[in-house]
């Protein structure tokens, strides 16, 4: 009975352990690595909110459309991200100006364009952005404004436009009276109507103004305006509301943005979208309204530009950030724009903060980043240190270092290097083309040619040398229907033949001659639903047809890397089409996918590089109100399907990628981050190692460096260097107490990058770690004892030991491939050669990983640098010379050690003796003889001045740095310098030996008899023990 019980418990226990083990690959498993955010910041991304603190206007917070919150305490010269663990789409920020450590952040941008991201509630920090707590409104999706009661910080008002793509009751104006613990909806229209804006009278915080807005997007249309829209006023803190109509705003309304003059709070401004859109003003708290300007920048795109700001000291000076920044000095009757003689300012403005203590000083947020002005908004300085660029796609070329290519929301098409001297700076990025950028494809056969596009399929061939740009867009032939190109039109090259280009309208096109001739290789692959093709009527009250709503188009195309005739095409209206004969016939397989709702956009198709029949697909249903991740895999060309989910995976998916080496290693980019699976998609872990929960729109894996390249829509390009260790991950690795992981081979190169002056300001992205990396997995955190990595040559000669990290999961330690620095002679100043050990020779080394309970060993191969033109003999000559100068430094240090040892004993002895005795007099004399001798070895003047004093040590140090810094053959001059130094040292050595043998040896007997500190010529053993 007992045995039986025990066995039952045992089995139950085992089950428990197994189920825990199944999740041993978790987000926290790879916390010790850091992906590289490389920008660019030369064009930043859309800024949605800027708030400064009144107490110290140098302290400001910048919220980005999909790049989190950045804080500066230096007025914008230095920014740090402070929200990287949370939703990256920021709709609104508010600072409690009386307690400026309290900050509220509403997630979910409210500039309701097609590509807008989705938030997950409101957050609060009470320590100036250091830590954030989510405080509800989880289903709000978009938040446009937060107001804090000036006299009671626990009372808040939050304007929630709410869900963009579906009905929702989680919208309207919310109030909290308990510091965000609970929320009351105090103004609401209907499931299509949210709250767009809210104002509070600073004299009487119970007086509130709020605008409701009825709006809706579908993937094929946008509608702004409806019966739900309107302007409301409450005089009792939101308990009761009156609709404001008198003399104001006839007919159906759309989005209304509001502003109040801080000096005259009854003076209110409103831009009200209507059949005709106007700026209105009221000087009596909304009782009566006067129609003011309707200039184009005032009425521009009300759904996108919903901001109006009144000067803190002048009720008649109004700023209208929209396409540009328009300024009125007459209360909105007329507007003018600044001339921008101080430099170009990126159009499309969404945030403006004016320093209330100095209204000359202001910050502006645009679609291309943040700016600061010191002259009331006339001239602006770009803050080039915010890497918030919003990529749609990214790819690479095969240069060394490779370049990354991609298109940015409202910021054109760009390329930049994966590494550069001193880091990847703004100047390293090259603009290729304008408009909104999407797919950018370098011609891998001709490095001068790059294919780019702007929105709606306007594709071009750019010659980067001649600067010529040729329009390549396919055109409808006679009698053909109008071509429908997606906002984000697929444009790519074939993985099997780099000269073959593909693009898509409602058809798939292929070109074999750089786009000169396009061959239509499919019929209309979409549903061709006429109801979804009325873009000319789209926009609601303000027609807005920018191609952003183009629909019934091909959205993604992929040719199998294993079969050029096997092509997949996905449409934005739900069709997944396959051809196995190069386009002769196509079959829609999406109806075969079980559980998949209809009409979801096929956001990516990824044919397996391992198996012809295997395919991965992501579907994006967020345009139909579904923000789940829909990821599928088929092993039989789309006849049967498995949904991949589980673990952390969440958010509508943009891209799936199978690793080209390990088919079990998968990546998915969703609106809320990057997810990885090491078991073919059964379990997913979120990649948080310097990858914020940012929209990951595209994923590429470089075939030579094995880098994972992410196109994020808000944090630029992020590179996770070298997937080699991750390809070795599986459950077995995580079950072993300690296990090594492989990594790519390092190159022993004394000068991997050139020199150059560092950037004068601006963002600098990190270069890859080019040292030798040692990767290992620990099953548990090591709490007791130490972890040591010991490196030796193949003969077991010790080279270096490095302290290891002790984290549970993946650990990584970099070895700079250097030996221990040589010991150097004693001198007045530090000797640089005693800090940098020489690089080891290329070859194979042994790595021992020593933990308190185990020792693991493996080989580590270090490669010689390629393409530097050094012969094997040259490399050998350099290595030999390195050894020679190294040994020289060590032996000089030994000589110095011997002399200093004697001096030290004399010094200590003499200090205890009375002057005048014979022993004392002699001791003093020898002390100074020894000092004279040591003065031959190294510069001894103890001063901070640049003395230029050069003795053997200083000369040897310069030679050491010269020889170790260059992998090739040392020069004749260096070799003869070495000879000369050997001679100089030998002379000094001989003088010392003579002094010892002829005089000091005898003297030491007398000295030592007097029980003074022992005078003794120290040997090599002493040297090794003591230093």
């Amino acid at each position, binding site marked *: 009975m007992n045995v039986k019980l025990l066995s039952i418990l045992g089995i139950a226990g085992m089950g428990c352990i197994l189920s825990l083990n199944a999740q041993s690959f978790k987000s926290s498993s790879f916390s010790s690595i850091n992906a590289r955010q490389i920008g660019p910041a030369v064009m930043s991304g859309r800024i949605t909110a800027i708030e400064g603190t009144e107490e110290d206007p140098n302290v400001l917070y910048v919220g980005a459309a999909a790049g989190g919150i950045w804080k500066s305490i230096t007025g914008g010269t230095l920014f740090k991200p402070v929200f990287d663990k949370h939703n990256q789409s920021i709709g609104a920020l508010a600072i409690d100006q009386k307690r400026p450590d309290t900050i509220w952040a509403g997630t979910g941008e409210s500039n309701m364009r097609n590509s807008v991201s989705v938030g997950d509630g409101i957050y609060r920090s009470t320590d100036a952005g250091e830590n954030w707590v989510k405080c509800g409104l989880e289903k709000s999706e978009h938040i446009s404004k937060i107001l804090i009661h000036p006299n009671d910080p626990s009372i808040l008002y939050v304007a929630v436009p709410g869900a963009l793509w579906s009905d929702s009751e989680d919208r309207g104006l919310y109030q909290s009276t308990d510091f965000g613990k609970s929320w009351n909806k105090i103004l609401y229209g209907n499931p299509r109507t949210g709250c767009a804006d809210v104002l509070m009278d600073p004299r009487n915080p119970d007086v509130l103004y709020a605008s409701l807005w009825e709006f809706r997007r579908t993937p094929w249309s946008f509608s702004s305006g409806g019966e739900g829209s309107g302007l409301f006023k409450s005089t009792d803190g939101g308990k009761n509301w009156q609709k404001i109509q008198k003399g104001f705003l006839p007919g159906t309304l759309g989005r209304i943005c509001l502003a109040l003059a801080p000096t005259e709070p009854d003076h209110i401004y409103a831009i009200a979208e209507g059949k005709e859109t106007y700026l209105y003003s009221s000087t009596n708290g909304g009782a009566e309204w006067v129609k003011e300007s309707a200039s184009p920048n005032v009425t521009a795109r009300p759904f996108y530009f919903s901001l109006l700001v009144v000067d803190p000291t002048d009720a008649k000076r109004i700023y209208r950030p929209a396409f540009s920044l328009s300024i009125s000095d007459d209360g909105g009757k007329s507007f003018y724009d600044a001339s921008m003689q101080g430099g170009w300012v990126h159009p499309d403005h969404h945030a403006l903060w004016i320093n209330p203590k100095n209204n000359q000083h202001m910050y502006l947020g645009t679609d291309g980043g943040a700016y600061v002005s010191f002259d009331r908004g006339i001239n602006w300085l770009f803050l080039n240190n915010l890497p918030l660029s919003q990529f749609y796609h990214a790819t690479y070329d095969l240069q060394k270092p490779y370049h990354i290519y991609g298109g940015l929301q409202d910021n054109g098409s760009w390329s930049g290097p994966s590494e550069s001297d001193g880091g990847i700076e703004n100047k390293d990025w090259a603009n290729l083309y304008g408009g909104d950028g999407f797919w950018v494809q370098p011609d891998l056969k001709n490095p001068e040619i790059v294919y780019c596009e702007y929105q709606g399929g306007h594709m071009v061939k750019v010659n980067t040398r001649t600067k010529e740009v040729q329009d390549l867009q396919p055109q409808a032939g006679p009698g053909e229907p109008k071509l429908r190109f997606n906002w984000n039109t697929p444009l790519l090259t074939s993985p099997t033949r780099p000269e073959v280009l593909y693009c898509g309208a409602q058809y798939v096109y292929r070109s074999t001659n750089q786009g000169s001739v396009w061959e239509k290789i499919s019929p209309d692959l979409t549903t061709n639903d006429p109801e979804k093709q009325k873009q000319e009527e789209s926009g609601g009250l303000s027609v807005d047809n920018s191609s952003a709503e183009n629909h019934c188009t091909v959205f993604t195309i992929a040719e199998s890397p294993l079969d050029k005739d096997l092509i997949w095409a996905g449409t934005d209206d739900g069709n997944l089409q396959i051809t196995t004969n190069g386009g002769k016939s196509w079959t829609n397989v999406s109806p075969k996918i079980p559980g998949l709702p209809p009409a979801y956009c096929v956001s990516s198709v990824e044919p397996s590089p391992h198996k012809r029949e295997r395919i991965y697909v992501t579907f994006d249903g967020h345009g139909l109100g579904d923000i789940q991740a829909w990821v599928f895999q088929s092993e039989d060309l789309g006849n049967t399907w498995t949904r991949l989910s589980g673990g952390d995976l969440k958010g509508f998916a943009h891209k799936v990628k199978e690793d080209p080496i390990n088919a079990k290693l998968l990546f998915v980019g969703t609106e809320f981050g990057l997810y990885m699976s090491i078991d073919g998609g059964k379990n997913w872990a979120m990649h948080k190692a310097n990858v914020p929960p940012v929209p990951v729109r595209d994923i590429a894996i470089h075939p030579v460096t094995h880098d994972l390249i992410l196109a994020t829509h808000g944090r630029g390009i992020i590179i996770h260097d070298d997937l080699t260790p991750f390809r070795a991950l599986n459950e077995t690795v995580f079950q072993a107490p300690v296990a090594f992981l492989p990594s790519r081979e390092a190159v022993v190169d004394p000068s991997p990058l050139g020199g150059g002056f560092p950037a004068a300001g601006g963002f600098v992205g990190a270069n890859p770690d080019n040292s030798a990396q040692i990767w290992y997995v620990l099953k548990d955190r090591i709490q007791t004892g130490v972890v040591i990595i010991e490196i030796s040559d193949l003969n077991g000669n010790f080279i270096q030991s490095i302290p290891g990290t002790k984290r549970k999961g993946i650990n990584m330690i970099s070895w700079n491939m250097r030996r221990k620095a040589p010991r150097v002679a004693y001198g007045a100043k530090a000797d640089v050669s005693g800090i940098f050990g020489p690089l080891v020779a290329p070859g194979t080394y042994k790595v021992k990983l020593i933990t308190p309970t185990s020792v693991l060993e493996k080989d580590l191969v270090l490669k010689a640098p390629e393409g530097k033109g050094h012969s094997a003999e040259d490399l050998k000559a350099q290595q030999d010379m390195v050894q020679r100068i190294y040994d020289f430094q060590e032996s000089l240090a030994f000589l110095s050690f011997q002399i200093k040892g004697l001096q030290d004993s004399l010094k200590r002895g003499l200090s205890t003796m009375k002057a005048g005795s014979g022993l004392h007099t002699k001791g003093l004399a020898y002390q100074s003889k020894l000092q004279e001798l040591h003065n031959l070895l190294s510069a001894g003047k103890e*001063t901070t001045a640049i003395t230029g004093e050069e003795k053997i040590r200083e000369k040897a140090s310069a030679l050491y740095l010269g020889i170790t810094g260059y992998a090739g053959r040392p020069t004749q001059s260096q070799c003869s310098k070495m000879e000369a130094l050997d001679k100089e040292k030998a002379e000094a050595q001989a003088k010392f030996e003579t002094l010892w043998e002829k005089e000091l040896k005898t003297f030491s007997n007398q000295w030592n008899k007097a029980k003074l500190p022992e005078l003794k010529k120290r040997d090599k053993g002493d040297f090794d023990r003591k230093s």
Partner: protein
Amino acid sequence: MKKIFFTFALLLSGLCSSTLSAQSAEEIVQKHIEAKGGAEAWKKVKATHMKMTASMMNMELPISIWIEAPDKMRNVVSFQGKEIITVVNGNEGWMVNPMMGNTKAEPMPESALKDIKDQADLAGPLMDYKAKGHSIEYLGADDMDGTEVYKIKLTEKEGDMTTFFIDKDSYMLLKMTSKKMVNGQETENSIEFSDYRKVDGLSFAFSTTSGMAGQNFESKITELKVNPSIDSKLFSKPE
């Protein structure tokens, strides 16, 4: 039989609830102090002398540190046969850095002085934090590189912030991150503690590491004495 299963279920649910139950900052700090030796024992610690080896940039540097509570410290780093000496004594502090040829003691800027003085708080800032004018806040449980921890934030009188990552099982301190203004700049630090060993009944981390992404700097204690007798001359201005 039924009873056994019931007990087993209880055991499992107990495991769950213990990880879910929220604790107050105060409780966690109390348990942490208890775990490292207890308040009473720590209050008897007036001084320490540590010998350490620091590994950085391929070098192993011997360091010797004398500390006398509450505000005296002497730190000597040996390098290329020379000594880099830092001394803090109350509101005064000096540094001798002969590496640039300067053998004279240079006075230390106030903010740097404070940073070092903080380290002379031998029992740590969490001990009697109220009396010291600090405040604490529980930031919740977290997964620190795969290990479950409690996060406690300490805000000092002057506004400097430190976050303590305390092991859920042992209540020992595993990591400390801080943000301080030093020499006019916001500086962020992160230090991990491990290899706890008992000396005179008190737990000391014999290994402290810092660094990011492959660059790991470790200091190991090779010798530690609690309440040694220290010549007061060691804390005067270095000659």
